């Protein structure tokens, strides 16, 4: 399971490369509604996959997604007019990683619900700090972002981030780091007594996850044109990422992927039909999903697949 690349994996790599190439062609067919929808899906796939890289194996539910996303967006607002775009992206990734490092060192000793609350508080704290800085120092809360990037280019960059997130997850799974994570997820005491530096492994994973989410924030920033802390550090982003990843199943690398797509489509449909009751209806749908598909869509699909194979064999 761990070592040489198996036939299944080769097929998965070839299939996902082909799927990516096909998806990259989408802007040629449509640059209106469908492209906007695809951007939304791609950004959430990248974020939910990055979220699950850390939270899936460690079972630490992070609500700090908005902190990374927003900080990535703010790096763009601060640097985009002076620095070339690749430099801006590298800076965003670094800011995300450093933020994760600082919070990780401070909080990963917390477990369970304490970590959840702290990560949520962190996102709120940073939002307040940015607001304070802007009102006290720069004098205005909002900032315009003048970057000439087309929607198609944003979409392609997001697809690239999805590929990077999935590839990173795959590479981690095959490495000692991934093996250490599985041990930590099962029993942290055994992990430590077997020689695993559990704090370091968790902080490292949190940094990788934070950097990827900050990159999504940076790539998405030009879509906003105008950003302020309320928009960039919107806590709904944190909640939606958790819901999507859990809907898909955070124990499989492709789990978040199959959670995001139905969720975003459903969100679009409900928001279009029932604009005043969107969150109410989404919440009810989520309750039903948790009740009927507790192991996530990926777990449900695997079970169904095994049943089909079992019957035909």
């Amino acid at each position, binding site marked *: 399971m761990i070592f040489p690349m198996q036939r299944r994996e080769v097929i998965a790599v070839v299939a996902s490369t082909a799927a990516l190439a096909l998806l990259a062609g989408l802007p040629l067919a449509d640059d209106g509604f469908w492209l906007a929808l695809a951007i939304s899906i791609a950004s959430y796939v990248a974020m939910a996959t990055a979220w699950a890289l850390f939270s899936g194996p460690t079972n630490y539910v992070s609500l700090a997604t908005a902190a990374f996303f927003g900080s990535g967006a703010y790096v763009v607002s601060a640097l985009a007019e002076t620095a070339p775009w690749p430099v801006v992206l590298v800076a965003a990734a670094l800011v995300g990683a450093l933020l994760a490092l600082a919070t990780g060192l401070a909080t990963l000793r917390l477990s369970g619900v304490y970590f959840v609350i702290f990560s949520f508080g962190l996102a709120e704290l940073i939002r307040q700090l940015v607001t304070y800085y802007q009102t006290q120092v720069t004098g205005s809360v909002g900032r315009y972002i003048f970057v000439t990037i087309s929607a198609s280019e944003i979409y392609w960059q997001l697809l690239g981030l999805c590929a990077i997130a999935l590839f990173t997850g795959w590479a981690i799974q095959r490495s000692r780091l991934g*093996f250490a994570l599985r041990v930590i997820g099962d029993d942290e005491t055994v992990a*430590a*007594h077997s020689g695993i530096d*559990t704090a370091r492994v968790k902080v490292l994973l949190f940094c990788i996850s934070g950097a990827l989410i900050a990159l999504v924030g940076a790539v998405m920033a030009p879509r906003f044109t105008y950003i302020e802390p309320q928009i960039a550090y919107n806590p709904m982003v944190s909640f939606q990422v958790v819901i999507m990843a859990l809907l898909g199943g955070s124990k499989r690398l492709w789990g978040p992927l199959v959670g995001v797509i139905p969720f975003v489509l459903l969100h679009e449909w409900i928001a279009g039909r029932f604009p005043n009751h969107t969150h109410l209806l989404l919440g009810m749908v989520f309750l039903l999903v948790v009740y009927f598909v507790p192991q996530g869509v990926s777990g449900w699909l695997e079970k169904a697949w095994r049943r089909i194979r079992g019957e035909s064999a």
Partner: protein
Amino acid sequence: MSSTAILSVTGLSKAFGGLLAVNQISFDVHRGEIVGLIGPNGSGKTTLLNLISGALAPTQGSVRLRRRELTGLPPHRIARAGISRSFQLVRVLPSLTALENVMVGATFGPDAVWGAEAAAIARALLERVGLGGRENAMPEAMTYIDQKRIELARALAADPQVLLLDEWLAGLNPTELRIGIALIESLHAEGRTILMVEHVMDAIRSLCDRCVVMNAGSKLAEGSPEQVLSNHEVIAAYLGDDHA
């Protein structure tokens, strides 16, 4: 004598608030020796083991492996220095196969073996503890003694200089107990150094070269099993003064 000591515990104490769970304990474990750590329930044996393996930090005193100071190091550093352990309540990793469970010891232990080499070590150890052919079994589907075997194999996979066993024989039925004792005896024969907390007297008599007896956190006696088990204070500690 101290020239061959692998593990030296000197004046080790642990206080939980006002309670002295371990009080000024000193002893050596020599190369190739099996030392039994015995005493009534609540006498501080497991706490002492936790101090050595780094699960708890001592209030006072020191733990040295050969000449290396281990006092106060976190558990992962102590594991990498060459001390492996089993747990009083068996701890297997439920989402990993038997083979992967054992590989953990080799991969993250002192030698940091990875890949096919770690798998080969794990396969050989599963064979050694009597689980040959069960590599892909999930631990949850295994019996209690088989889970204990996995745990032992995982500790051995690190090729430790000192192996700590916390009541590894507890909870086994008489047949399993014989198998378990034979297994530890075979480790002794190959020269492993073992410190074991144990309640099973048959096992202590047949396996241990020396015993350290604890009572209420303090060291009560030290010597061969025959010596300490006929010691009046030891009998009094286990059975009460009337029997001594």
